[in-house]
């Protein structure tokens, strides 16, 4: 995975000065969301496929390797290529695995 060096015209210092604050907020939002899940009145979705995918994505965030966004996109994707026999519902879920989970249950 190439790092595409030099493709962003801003210096790192400019990226920090301009964008640090909005990304600081995003990290705190994620942290608070995870805490909120633990404080929930009923911890009944610890293994929900979306929560599992989110935790895997968070691990990917701390990877030192560039290409984090592509890898997280693929973590959240259906990797198969075979069309479904019939539509299950109109909307996607945001992460892949619900059908696997149903089979296991």
């Amino acid at each position, binding site marked *: 995975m190439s790092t595409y060096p030099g493709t962003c015209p*801003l210096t790192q210092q400019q990226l920090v000065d*301009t964008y640090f604050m909005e990304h600081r907020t995003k990290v705190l939002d994620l942290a608070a969301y995870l805490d909120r899940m633990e404080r929930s009145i009923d911890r009944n979705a610890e293994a929900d496929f979306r929560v599992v995918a989110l935790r895997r994505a968070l691990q990917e965030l701390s990877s030192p390797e560039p290409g984090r966004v592509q890898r997280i996109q693929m973590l959240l*994707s*259906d990797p198969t290529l075979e069309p*479904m026999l019939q*539509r299950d519902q*109109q909307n*996607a879920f*945001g992460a*892949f695995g619900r059908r696997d989970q149903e089979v296991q249950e």
Partner: protein
Amino acid sequence: MKYIDIHAHMVSRTTDDYQQMALTGCVAVTEPAFWAGYDRTSAAAFADYFRHLTEFESQRAAKYGIDHYTWLCLNPKEGEDRALAHEVLNIIPQFLDHPTVLGIGEIGLNRVTRNELATFTDHVDLAMQHRQLIHIHTPHLEDKYKGTKVIVDTLAADSRIEPARVMVDHVEEHTIEMVLAQGFWAGITLYPMTKVSPGRAIDLIEIYGSERVCVASACDWGPSEPIAVPHFIFEMRRRGHPDRLIHKIVYENPVEFLSQSPKFHIRQEQADAVLY
């Protein structure tokens, strides 16, 4: 800066939105046929919708100095119903000669089912029979990679397809490369929740370049931003990009793609308007 929004579902927006778009430099929109939020029950409902797109909507846009063009199809969210798809495919040709119809779209896949794929290829056949441009919707979220791959592979195997006459929309980090590599145009949708932020759209352009790339709001009846393209322009400037490059992406590129339809024209006063 003047711009063209190549993907906006204006039937779902108010005239206030047209005003905002006009005030921020929009000179033209192209509106692909879309899902109403519920499945339509008959081909007659589609005929009414196509009349809305070709007649009423262009008049409404004109009041704000915006040229309105459209694309027709039965959208991927309704593609599962093969019987309805056949009926709608039969009525589309009677609208294709309308002066604001640029082609067939937004066709594609939603949950990536066999029926959706069959309805998609039926629309491709129709576009080929009538030599129409094609505008493609790729699925969202976990379905995007799979759906985009199936669409790209299907079109690449079809010798009738001229990739430069096809816009594959809603590309993201994991799909843009395969779309551009096959010679298609890539559309980046600026959508607050489910698609791409202006910041990530700019990342894609920095990495993959500005050839055969367009950005659009894809504003519809859901949470979306009709002036997403001006937000992109603002963010491009903040990211240190020159106006010449921004102008290429938000104006020259759409003109290049859309001008492949003989019906698409930029009026002289728009062409003469101050470049940036």
